[in-house]
Each structure stands twice: as C-alpha cells, then as structure tokens.
C-alpha cells in the first residue's frame, strides 16, 4: 500500500512542528524517517497511524484519504519504542488482541496468531506474560501484534532503542526479514543512521520538521544534499573544513593549509567561501594527493583503526583504515587524500 503525505501540517498549541511536508512511501518499501530527537519524525509517524490529528494537508493510503479516519479504522500496525505490550495479557492474548476486538472467530484467531508467531519465531512463548520475556522477545511480540491483522502499513517507532547492542543487531535483520517476507509497506522512525541505512530501502532525513533529502542509503551517503545530511550520516562522522577557493582548483582552509578540490569544482571562481567535507575513509587509503601531518589520536576499533591527523597549521583530519599498529601517536605521516570524493557545500550549506 502506497502511503502519501500531502502538505501535512502539524501544530501543538501555537507551535508548528511540521509545516506542509510531502512524502510518498512506495508499496512494499521500507522507508526510514531519520533525524535527531525533536525533528518531528515521531510526530509524523503518529499522524500516519492516527494517534495525532493532523492540522492540515492529507494522508493517503493508496487512494484512500485517511486524514479524518480514526486510528481504529486505519488498519495500521505500530511497534512502539517501549513495545506497549499489555502486561495483564499473555503473549497469545496480546497478539490476538487486534483480531479479537475486531470480533474474529476463535479458530481464525488461533490460526492467525500461530502463523504470525511462527513468522516471528515466538511459538514457544505464547503462554507467557510480557513481564517474563526478554527485551528482544518483547520486541518480537510487539511486531507480531502489529502484523497479525495484516495492516496496510507497518510503523516502527524507534523499535531498537531499548535493546542492548547485540540484540539490536539481531533484531535489525529480523525486522527486515519479516518486512521482506510479508512485503508490507513499512516506515521506521529512528535517530540511528546505522539502523536506517542497514534496514531500509530509502531514507527520508528530517531536521526541524522538514524532510531534507529522500534517497537510498548509498546515494544519500555518497551525495548528501547539504551539510546537515553529510554530518548526520557516517560513523565516524565527516570532518568539515571552512575556507575559500583559490581559483586554481584548490581550497584554502582558513588556517592556511591548501587542499585539492574535486575536478568538477576546479573551475570555481576564486575566493568563494566553501565548506569542504572529508570522510575518514577518503583520507589515508588512496588518492593522488599527499597530505602531511602528525598522528594526534589513535582509536583501535578491532577490525579498523581510527586516526586523527593534525596538520602543521592545526587542522585535524580523520582517517579510518584497516587495523594497523605500525603507526603510533606522535608519528609524522604522509597519507593520500582522495580529492574526487570530497564533498563541498556553499555558505547556505547546500551541496555544490
């Protein structure tokens, strides 16, 4: 089911949180609403499922306008951050709840619940109560409850935020597996770029109630539309250098260092203020340009090692490389910089 938001506006009292947002989620697609806390991503989710009434615009499920349909009748499945399982009901009763309020017959309910429990791998937990489940199991139950009545849309509100790191990895792939198996249209709200990138077909990145860019994870990582998107995606984060163009295809960092510009920007007139973004994987691996500096920080991460390299004039570049211990703190290095991969933004923050 395609989900479309047209000029969606949401205000709380006098504060406009979201102002005429447009978004289209394709049928069977999993889309991430990614952004820092307070950016309006959960508000958007709650508007789609009907918990929040919208103040303007339209929400369409397929061709059906559901803007004024109460949440009970929207046929959406929601997984809440704290799972919101009903503590007084067993797992079976929790999953059966959407069916039994609809008035389905006992055998139907039994069959549907068993089927969805098999899909989410919780068959052996059906008799327990939520209090007797681990976080990951509760997550699966919440997912099963959201999916059991075959909703048009599955909405996930920070579903992994309450899990520990290992379970988070496991559930990440589980949720994606289930979404792909059911072919349901899903919207994932998260502030974690790794979740968004690893689980979703496309990401809609939001800030201050606005969608900045909608793209596949790779495209968004490679070609962010602005400084905010570039900074939000990537771990370890991108390094932003402020400076001006020299006019001859180079970039003069404020502090004095001169770095090459990608070839597509070589023709830029001189003295144009720019921000240059250097991702850590584009420094120290390959490239035609050489940059000299001193290792000022080493962070081994097991498979990789993260370095901070301080250039002569104090500019710090970050580099991530396959684990190596031949470089130590304080050592002078000359590492390549892949100038073609550098990102550049104008004064307003837009990519150029």
């Amino acid at each position, binding site marked *: 089911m395609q989900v479309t938001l047209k000029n969606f506006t949401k205000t709380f009292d006098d504060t406009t949180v979201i102002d005429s947002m447009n978004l289209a989620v394709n049928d069977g697609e999993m889309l991430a609403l990614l952004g820092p806390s307070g950016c309006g991503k959960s508000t958007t989710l*709650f508007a789609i*499922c*009907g*918990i929040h009434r919208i103040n303007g615009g339209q929400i369409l499920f397929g061709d059906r306008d559901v803007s004024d349909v*109460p*949440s*009970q*009748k*929207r*046929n*959406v*499945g*929601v997984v*809440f*951050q*704290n799972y*919101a*399982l*009903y*503590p*007084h*009901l067993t797992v079976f009763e929790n999953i059966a*709840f*959407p069916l039994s*309020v*609809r008035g389905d017959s006992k055998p139907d309910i039994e069959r549907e619940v068993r089927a969805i429990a098999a899909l989410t791998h919780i068959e052996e937990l059906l008799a327990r109560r*939520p*209090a007797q489940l681990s976080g990951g199991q*509760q997550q699966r139950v919440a997912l099963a*409850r959201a999916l059991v*009545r075959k909703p048009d849309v599955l909405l996930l509100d920070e579903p992994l935020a*309450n899990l520990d790191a290992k379970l988070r990895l496991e559930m990440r792939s589980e949720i994606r597996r289930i979404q792909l198996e059911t072919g349901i249209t899903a919207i994932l709200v998260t502030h974690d770029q790794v979740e968004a990138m690893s689980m979703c077909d496309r990401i809609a990145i939001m800030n201050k109630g606005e969608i900045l860019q909608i793209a596949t994870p790779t495209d968004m990582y490679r070609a962010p539309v602005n400084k905010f998107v570039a900074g939000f995606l990537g771990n370890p984060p991108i390094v932003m250098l402020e400076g001006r163009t020299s006019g001859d295809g180079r970039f003069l960092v404020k502090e004095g260092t001169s770095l090459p510009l990608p070839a597509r920007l070589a023709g830029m007139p001189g003295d144009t203020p720019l921000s240059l973004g250097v991702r850590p994987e584009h420094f120290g691996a390959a490239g035609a340009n050489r940059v000299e500096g001193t290792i000022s920080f080493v962070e081994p991460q097991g498979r990789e090692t993260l370095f901070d390299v301080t250039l002569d004039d104090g500019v710090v570049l970050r580099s991530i490389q396959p684990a190596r211990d031949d470089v130590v703190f304080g050592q002078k290095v000359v590492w390549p910089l892949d100038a073609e991969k550098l990102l550049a933004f104008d004064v307003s923050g837009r990519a150029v």
Partner: protein
Amino acid sequence: MRTRTCLLGLAFVSPALALLFAFFLMPVVLTTVFAFTNMSTSTGITGGSHVITGNLLRDLGNAGVDDDIVAALSEGSFSVTPETLAAAAEAGVEPRFLGEIESSLMGQSFEDARSFESALKALPSRPTRIRDIKLATEPFERSILNTRYSSRAAMETAIASMVPDAPVDTVSAIAEASYTGWRWIDGGNFQTLLDRPETIRIVLNTVFYVAATLAFNVFVGLFLAITTFYLPKTGAGFFSVLWLLPRITPVVLYAVMWKWFTWDNGFLYVIAEQLGLPAFNYMKGSVPTAWATIILVNGFVGASFGMILFSGALRAIPVQQLWASEVDGASRWQQIRRIILPQLRWPILFVTSYQTLSLLSSYEQIWLTTNGGPGSTTTVWALEAFNTALNNYTGNLEYGMGAAMALILVAVGLILSILYLRMFRFDELVNKPRIEF
C-alpha cells in the same frame, strides 16, 4: 556485642511497641473482656454491693422462688429498739420527740407505716408537719429491701434473719442474684443477640448498607476516574476537586448540608412541591428515601476516595498502551474494558476491601442523618453497638452488650480481610511489577 545490639534495637522499637500495645491491642483486648460481662451503667465497671430491690423480688417470684419467702423479704416492719432509736437520733429526729417515742413505744413493733405513724401522732411533742412525721418513721423501718450489704455473707445473714426457715441454697441464690456489680456471663451477650428478633433485621440492614454503598463507591469512583481521565487536563482538575468536596467537608457540616437538602422545606422538598411530586422529609419520611439518603451520603465520600486511587492508577498506565490499543482497533469501550480495567484490579481490590471494612464499622453519617430511622429500618450493626454501649436514651449504657456487638464486627472484619487477601492473591499482586516497559 550481638546481645548489646539486640537490646539496643529493642530499646529503639519499644516506644512503637508500647504505642502499638496501648492503642491497637488493648482496645481489642478490652472489648473482648467486656464482651463476656454484663457491664452497664447500673453495674458500674469497678464492683458492686448486694441489694434486694422490688424488681429483683418480682424477678425472684417469677423465677420460682417460694412466694412466702418473697413476701417475707418484701415486708418491712417498724420497731422501736435501742438500735433504731440511735439511728433516728443520727437522722436528726427532734430529741424531745425521740424521748417520748422511747418512753412510750419502746419494744413495740408495727406491721406497716400507717399504724406506726398513727402511734406517733398520738405523742404530745410530735412535729406539726406530716412530712416530718413520715421522715421520723424511716429510721425505725427494719427491712432488707433496698438495703446495701457490702459482702455476700452479710446479705445472706440478713436474708436468714428475715426468713429463718428458708433453705440455704435459696438464700445463697437470692444473695447471688442481689449482686449489683458486673459479672462474667460467658456467652450471655451473644446468646441474647441470637435470641433477639431485631438482630437479623440489623444484620440484613448492615449487609444491604455495605453492599449498596460499596457498589456506589467503586462504580461511581471508577466512572469518575475514567471520565476525568479522558477529559482535557484543566477540566479534569476542576472535577477532581469538586468530587473531593464531600471528603474535605467536616462530617457534621456535610450531614447538616444533607439535612437542608432533604428535609421538610429543604431544597428537594421545594423542588418536588413545585413539580407536583410527593414532597416530604426524604431523610426520615420513608424507608426507600432514608436508604437512598444514607447510601448517597456515604457513597459520595467513598466515591471520591475511589476516584483518587483509580485516577492515580490510570495515570500509571503508559500512554503508549492506550495508543497501541487504539491502532489495534479497540473502541473506547473495548479499551476501557480490556486494557484499563484489568490493570485497575489492584486499586479496585484495595478500595473494595478497605471500604468494606470501613463501612462495616462506620455509623457517624447514619447517626447524624437518619439516626437509624424511620423506626429502626436503617439501623446498622455499628450504630446499634454505639447506641447500646454509649448512647442509650434510657440512660443505661450496656457496655458489655455493646462490646459483644463490637467484637462480632471485629471478627467479621478479620474474616473478610483474610478472604479478600486469599481471593485476590494479594501477595502476588504486590510482589510482581504491575507495569512493564
């Protein structure tokens, strides 16, 4: 070292223990003790003496004591002897008159007051006022009737002197019966309660009162809590305060307001009159309206209590659960019935058990409004116990009977508490986390 710490601990808890003993245990112990006595205003609570009264003689006669003995004991005689003369002198009879009595009537006996009086009237220095003559006869009266004997032995001697030929066991039984202090009567009070025809009435009244008021408390409390829960915040606060008023208002003032509301020419009366409906004193004028009044009076107080507890519990349910149930398709009613109410089980249990116990023992509002009337149609056990022990209009406060009634109430309360704890598996409810995140 270990002993010292133990003793120190004991020293620290001892004030609490002493208070517990004095204010929690002692009342129950004393109630139990009193319940097995016939203590009342007339027996006193310390001790008594032995007196044969006219009433007692009538009772003895009814109980089958020989009529001759009863007659002999009731007879008084007037005799002039050195002892009675001395008693008369002490009572302040005029010495000259007394001298004449001594000289002319010494050693004589008179069957009744009349003949003795006429003998006295014949004496020259008799008092002019009849009243004084009557007063002068009193010290000469030799009778067991209404005479206090401090010990049982003295009483037996006195009885024996009046009826020398009475059998010893009869004398002893009469002496026993003449005791005015309180006595252990084993289960006598309980037997009396069992035998009384009005006991069953009071029990039924109490059951009805508790059940109806409890139902009102819980249902109205729940209704208010849930409706205010769905109201916008500002309105909800206002309503909460409004519903708290019956609880905040002093009991007496609250009862007086209900009187104004329901009495002759009260608010309801006037409205009913205007509407052409039957207008009368609703509080005391008919049994149904009297019941309605006391159930509402108590019900509103308890409903606010329930509302506060239920509201708190409602607010403890994570809002996401309610959202979840809405997107799961549950209507408001299904949400209340299937998500909210089951999670209010613990506060509902608490309000039910707490209110049952407090309603069982509460009588203030009833006392202040219908006072058990009309007749004794709205008299409940606690009110009856209170009236028996502390508020009897005949003036004879029956502490022993009142204590017995109170003891029954304590026992019923205890049994009910245990039942409630069992029924709702209280410990399980308290031990387990009620709300999961």
